[in-house]
């Protein structure tokens, strides 16, 4: 870009505000000496500058376009405390092993953002700037949210501990399944799958992301049959059971109508899709807090912008925003299943959702120390191509506070859905038992399962069916600091 002044350093006063076009870095958006305040929002971008654009200028441009700048100098800046409102790029690092990419650290004063509004925060941070011509590609990798700003958000309406207390389920991962086929079942047939899976031993069943109110099954019909199934299963097992009733709809008014009906019917949980949008998510989160409802979020759509390393945003940022916006469950990867997920990256997501503080851990993709300021914990959900033969790996990688969802791995069982559910529950309980007894369960997983299968035929048949199924593909979203691919198993 032409620099009319040819200036190298930040300009001040009359020189800064002369009409015309300036490089972003001389306008004050590049401040290598800036020390971020505790109350600043900090964003880390992966920048791929256009050829010929220097890294610090590209970083300054991103800071400018995500805060106060426009393409030319405007005198009206001088009517404001412009130095405060300007975002400041203060550090640029080369990305290891990627010669054309840079990590740019940009600090934003907290007063740039409306309290308790993910929509407002994101309109700046991932607004116009992603289409900006001076960068060839841009990815939001991580954010540090200051405690003062976090405290304006409600967070998860229920939180992991209260959810466990409501469900009376402790000391083990929860089990779930998504009803399959995801499309086409009538309400009556759909409820059959729910009943069988819950009675067989699962804690939850789930609507899929694209089950709303279609010609083959309208929403009220689904809700009524699912609640018959949930209550029958609860009476049959003396356990609290739930089905995530998806209340996603074309309008917010319809969404509330569905949520109210779920409440009337006594459901413990409702579900939304990420494609709802941030405003609607925050609204239904507040409704859920008010109505004692657990809120499940399906991350429909996220891979369109989170999967490729050079452009878009990392899923860990979505995890942060959703913990702030306030959801109780979020799908966050399985490591071993059919969907994208490097083990270290997935650990970074899980820590972001569950920990009260996360330290800097570049190997997990966590670039900032983050204090969560007593916001509740959000339960990660592992779903997509996982099965009971991987139970030891799932417990090892994902821990205890997780919902393991075996959709195909329950419904596809050769002896029926109840048998599939029972097999999963027996596999899980035997693995937790072995872990607590101090057994090296990761190494001895297959032995533990084989032993448990001796007194549980459904588990034996499940193992026979799925024991050799795995999805070994290299991940695309991998750490930059300890380069590795998902190990073959």
């Amino acid at each position, binding site marked *: 870009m032409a620099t009319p002044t040819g200036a190298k350093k930040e300009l001040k006063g009359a020189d800064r505000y002369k009409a015309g076009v300036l490089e972003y870095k001389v306008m004050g958006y590049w401040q290598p000496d800036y020390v971020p305040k505790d109350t600043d929002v900090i964003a880390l971008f992966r920048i791929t500058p256009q050829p010929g654009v220097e890294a610090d200028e590209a970083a300054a441009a991103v800071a400018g376009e995500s805060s106060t700048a426009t393409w030319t100098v405007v005198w009206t800046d001088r009517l404001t405390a412009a130095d405060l409102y300007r975002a400041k790029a203060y550090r640029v690092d080369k990305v290891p092993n990627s010669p054309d990419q840079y990590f740019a650290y940009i600090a934003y004063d907290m007063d740039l953002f409306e309290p308790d509004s993910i929509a407002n925060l994101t309109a700046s941070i991932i607004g116009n700037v992603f289409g900006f011509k001076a960068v060839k590609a841009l990815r939001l990798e991580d954010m540090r949210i200051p405690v003062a700003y976090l405290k304006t958000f409600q967070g998860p309406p229920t939180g992991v501990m209260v959810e466990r207390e409501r469900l*009376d389920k402790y000391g083990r991962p929860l089990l779930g399944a998504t009803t399959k086929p995801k499309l086409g079942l009538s309400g009556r047939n759909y409820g059959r799958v729910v009943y069988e899976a819950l009675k*067989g031993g699962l804690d939850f069943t789930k609507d899929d992301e694209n089950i709303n109110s279609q010609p083959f099954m309208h929403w009220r019909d689904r809700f009524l049959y699912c609640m018959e199934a949930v209550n029958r299963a609860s009476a049959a097992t003396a356990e609290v059971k739930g089905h995530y009733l998806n209340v996603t709809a074309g309008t917010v008014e319809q969404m509330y109508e569905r949520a109210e009906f779920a409440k009337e019917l006594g459901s413990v949980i409702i579900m939304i899709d990420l494609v709802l949008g941030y405003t609607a998510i925050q609204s239904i989160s507040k409704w859920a807090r008010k109505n004692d409802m657990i809120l499940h979020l399906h991350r429909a759509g996220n891979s369109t912008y989170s999967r490729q390393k050079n452009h878009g945003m990392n899923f860990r940022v979505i995890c942060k925003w959703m913990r702030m916006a306030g959801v109780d469950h979020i799908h966050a990867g399985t490591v071993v299943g059919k969907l994208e997920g490097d083990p270290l990256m997935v650990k970074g997501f899980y820590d972001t959702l569950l920990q009260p503080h996360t330290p800097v851990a570049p190997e997990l993709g966590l670039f900032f120390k983050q204090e969560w300021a007593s916001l509740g914990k959000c339960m990660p959900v592992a779903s997509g191509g996982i099965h009971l033969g991987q139970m030891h790996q799932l417990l090892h990688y994902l821990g205890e506070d997780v919902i393991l969802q075996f959709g195909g791995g329950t419904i596809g069982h050769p002896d029926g859905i109840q048998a599939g559910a029972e097999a999963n529950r027996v596999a899980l309980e035997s693995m937790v038992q072995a872990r*607590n007894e101090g057994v090296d369960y990761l190494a001895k997983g297959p032995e533990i399962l084989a032993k448990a299968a001796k007194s549980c035929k459904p588990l034996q048949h499940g193992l026979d069916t799925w024991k050799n199924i795995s999805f070994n593909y290299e991940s695309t979203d991998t750490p930059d600091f300890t380069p590795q691919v998902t190990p073959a198993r």
Partner: protein
Amino acid sequence: MHENPRNMTQGQFSFLPPLTDDQIKAQIAYAIKQGFAVSVEFTDDPHPRNTYWEMWCQPMFDTKDPAAVMLEVNECRKTWGANHYIKVQAFDNARWRESVAMSFIVNRPKYEPGLALARQEGPGRSIHYTVHSYATDKPRGERYK
């Protein structure tokens, strides 16, 4: 079709064969190692929302010997075992949890009638459901006889 034969599956290990005393002791040892306080509770009402079972004792905050906890389990069994459910619970008082960390059944009544589902039909096909444990048709102390 295969049907799940169990009718009361609360707790961490209800799908496994009943735990032996050694297995129970191993779980208690794990709980103590994690710094949890173990307690013993019993009830004759297995309703899923019967939150407050009777406390056999207070959580054993200072007991570091699994055998001592096992003694309480066995004392509770002697008194209530014939016709009550007994569970072992472990409580974690660490900040950010401050709740139950483990819970598993260690004793079942000889006869388990289970629960019924009562339906009250309402307008618009809606139904109000009541889960009801058969045992509670009789007063406490006379159930499971």
